[in-house]
Every structure is written in C-alpha cells, then in structure tokens.
C-alpha cells in the first residue's frame, strides 16, 4: 500500500469551501492549489460568477460529457474568443470539472492568465500528458468567420494521441455570435476509441469526427 501525503481538502473537494473569505484565506497563506500545467482552481472559482454575467450558455447533449476520466472535446469556432469560455462553462455546470483549453500562447501577457484559467499551449506532448492524467481537454478547430455552419477539417495528430490512449472524442458544435451574450453548446455522441486503439486509423477517425460535427452544425442551423 502506498500512502500519499496530501491535504484533506485536496483529496475530498467537498471539504473545500469556495466562499470569498475561504478563497482569500487560501490565497494569503499560499494554500491555494496550482497544478502542474498552471491551473489555479480558486481563481477559476472566483472568475465563474463574472463569466456568468458575460455569457449565457445553453447546453444540449450534455449527458455525453464524462463525469470521470479523460475526453478530447473537439469544438468549432467562429472568431474563437467566446467559444472556449462557453464550452468551459457548460462542462463546469454539468460535471463540476475544469476544462483544459489547448492553444494558449506559451509566452507573453496572455500566457499567465490563460494557464491559470486552465489553458495549455497547443502541443501534442502536453495533450498526451493531460489526457493521461484524466483531464477533459478542449481542442478548437480552425476559425470559420464566413461559414459558421461548416465544420473545418480535424487535425490528425491530436486524434492520434486520443486513439493511442483510448480516450473518447466528443464533437462539440458551438453556435453564437460575438459580441452577443447567448451561446449554444451542442455535444454529440462520443467516438469511442478504446476498442479501436490497436487497429484504428487516425485519419479516418478525424474525418468521422468532422462528419459528426457537421451533422451537429446542420441540426443547429435547422433548429
């Protein structure tokens, strides 16, 4: 048996209070938690009420978001500013889990805030370590400014990582318009990779993900 030393709050999140005095106390005593990729859960908890003032998110198909274990959420983007926030809010509301967003800059002024709020640089190696650690990772596709209901190609390397680790891929269509407040997050059925890991073709899987995203977007347009 291995005994791991840790605070009780770190082992049981129910013991951790999220009210303002508790957040401030943890901040001034250094007891807040920052993980290896830079996510600061207390900072996220403090920012969520502000995000709710800015965005109103309706989630459809959210029963597909896993409560435990890793998943790669491949989502569409129009301009790419509100979409990661909308997906993150939907995931947090449904599962209470933080969303890791791939694609923040590795240096510069946005790097600090981005990583504290759950972002990671767009790097296949970091994607692999995040998925192995059981995290939910959002991967934004190419921007579609002129054709928002068109699903762009899904990059193969991240799909290859998910396939190798047997991690499910969730297609997520994000529909809305900057600077409007209302956004709709449509989560499709996951593409299960566990059984395909030995023989699967990542290019084929990437195309299957794109096709599922296209169906979600077409449905959103009709609906």
């Amino acid at each position: 048996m291995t005994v791991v030393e840790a605070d009780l709050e770190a082992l049981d999140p129910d013991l951790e209070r999220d009210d303002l005095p508790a957040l401030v106390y943890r901040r001034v005593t250094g007891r807040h938690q920052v993980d290896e990729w830079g996510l600061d859960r207390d900072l996220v908890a403090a920012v969520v009420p502000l995000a709710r003032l800015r965005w109103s998110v309706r989630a459809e198909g959210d029963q597909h978001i896993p409560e435990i274990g890793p998943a790669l959420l491949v989502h569409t983007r129009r301009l790419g500013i509100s979409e990661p926030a909308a997906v993150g809010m939907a995931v947090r509301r449904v599962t209470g889990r933080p969303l890791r967003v791939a694609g923040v800059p590795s240096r510069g002024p946005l790097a600090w805030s981005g990583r504290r709020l759950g972002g990671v640089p767009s790097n296949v190696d970091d994607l692999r370590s995040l998925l192995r650690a059981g995290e939910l990772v959002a991967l934004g596709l190419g921007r579609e400014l002129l054709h928002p209901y068109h699903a762009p190609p899904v990059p193969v390397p991240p799909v290859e990582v998910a396939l190798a680790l047997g991690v499910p891929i969730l297609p997520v269509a994000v529909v809305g318009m900057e600077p409007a407040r209302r956004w709709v997050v449509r989560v499709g059925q996951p593409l299960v990779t566990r059984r395909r890991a030995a023989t699967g073709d990542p290019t084929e899987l990437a195309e299957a993900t794109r096709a599922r995203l296209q169906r979600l977007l077409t449905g959103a347009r009709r609906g």
Partner: protein
Amino acid sequence: MRVLITGMGGELGTRLAIQLGADPAVTAVFGLDIDPPRRRHPGEFHRVDPRDRDRTTALIRGFAPNVLVHLGVYEPYARSSPRSAAERTAVGTVAAVTAAVDAGHLDRIVVRSGIEIYGRRRGAPVHPDEEVRPDPTSPFGRQLLHVERVCNEAGLHVAAPVTSLRFAPLVGPHFPSPLGRYLRMPAVPFAGLADPPFSVLHQEDAAAALLAAVRRPFDGPVNVVGPGAVTASQSALLGRRVPVPTVVPGWWAARWFSELAGAPLPDHVLELLTRGRSADGSRAEERLGVRPTRSTPSVIRSLYAWDEVVVTTAPQVEAA
C-alpha cells in the same frame, strides 16, 4: 551483486548504500566521492575527486562491479561551484563508466538525471513525458544530457539496461539544494508577470526510486516527480516568507541579493523561477514499481519545517 555507487558522499548515495547493505542479494557496496558519506554505512568508501581520472579508474577496475549506480552528477551550487560541478560531472562520468565497462562484469546501469534535461525553450511542453526529446536550455540540463549519453553508449556496448532516473529538483530538510536555499531566504523574489508552477521531489522518494531501479532494471528514462506543483510566490507564503514580485531587469539584483544571502542562484534555478519546471511522472510506478509518496506542496512545507540550528552551551562538568 556487487554495486558501485559514484557520488556516495551525498544524501542519496549514503541512503542507498545503507539500504543496499541490508539487501541479502547485494554482496558488496563500493563508493566513491569527493565528500565522505553522511552517515555510517556497511560499504567500502574511497574519498576521491572525480577529476582524478587515474585513481577513479584504478579503484573501479579493482572492484569490478555488476551494477553501476552513477550519482556523481553535481548540481551547480549544491555542493560545488558551477565550474567544478561541470568538470566533476563530465570527467567523473566518463572515467567511472569507462572503468566499469572495462572491468568486464557490468550488467546494469542506474543513472541520476533530472527533468532539467527537457529544457524550457519557447513552445516546449509544459509537462513533458519520457517520449519528449531532451532539449536542454541550461548548463545543468546539458550536463545531464551528456551523462545520459555516456551511460547509454556504455549500456549499448555491454548490452546492459540503463535506467535514467529523471528527478524533479530535489528539495528537503538537510539536502544541499540551491532551490531549497533560495526558497528559505527571508524574502523570495518571484517572476511577477508569470509566477509559473514547478514540481519538486523529496530525497526519500528519490532514494526509493534508485533502490527500485537497482532491483528491477528498466531500459530507458523514467521521470520521477512529486505529484502536484507550487509557484515561487505560493512557496514563499507557505514558509511565511515575503514574496517579492520581480520583472526582467530585477533578476540581476535578485541574483546579487540571493548570492549575498548565501543562496546563489544557478541558471537552471532561474529558469525554473521564470519559466516553470514539471514533468509527467505517471509512468514511474509502471516502470519501477514505486511512486513518490510526498506531494510537491508537502515537500515545500517540510522544507520550511526544518528547524534552525540552535547553539547550546555544553554543561559544565566539575573535575574530580
């Protein structure tokens, strides 16, 4: 099993020698280092400067080890100045590995490396696993890469498995570490605009990984990292120190101040403070059968729980 430990005078080497001495499968433990071991141990020890190549070679050939545990990797400002550390590591590695191979009985190599080997170049992964190609960006990282290369070549030569244990920065009570000394200063400068997270490893977890690697050889690198992370400012607050936000030009003053305070800041620690340092150690259990039991925040707390030295006067004894 005849085990040679280079760098046996350090905390890790001494701990390992004591643990191996209690193992019935180990018939002899032989150690070399510039400093004597820190505690009594059951092995044979020779005090020799790793730069003394002839003496190192003669001693190792005479012992003819089956297992080489190469801990003679000197971190700048831990026990040596950066220049001495680089020389001792480079010359000592080549001398020890060559002599161990020439002795003709070597069937296993375990080498102390570090996650500094991955470097922190722009675009480098934040949390690299063992599949990431080493690309060091600090002198200590390059030292480690050289050590791994020499050991891997030797392993290929004698067809022996080489386990490269890539440790997170080692920190703990009574452990000579430039990062530990820096974080224990009364005021701790940290990167004001980034304050990136880093992970550390307790010396006991490192010793347990070394022992496991000796007993269960694995051919390849293994990251050994304490779970979790802290930032420099958070660490200062945990130790009730004053965190001092610092931006680029301020690091010059911070380095000067920390050197004056007896905690000189080598390049790889400055890199850790400004760009962060962590690695994915999730495969250690699968590859070695052990995993670190102390989280990074608890290691940092233990660093501050280390009591100050209290000077007491000896009781007066009257002559009869």
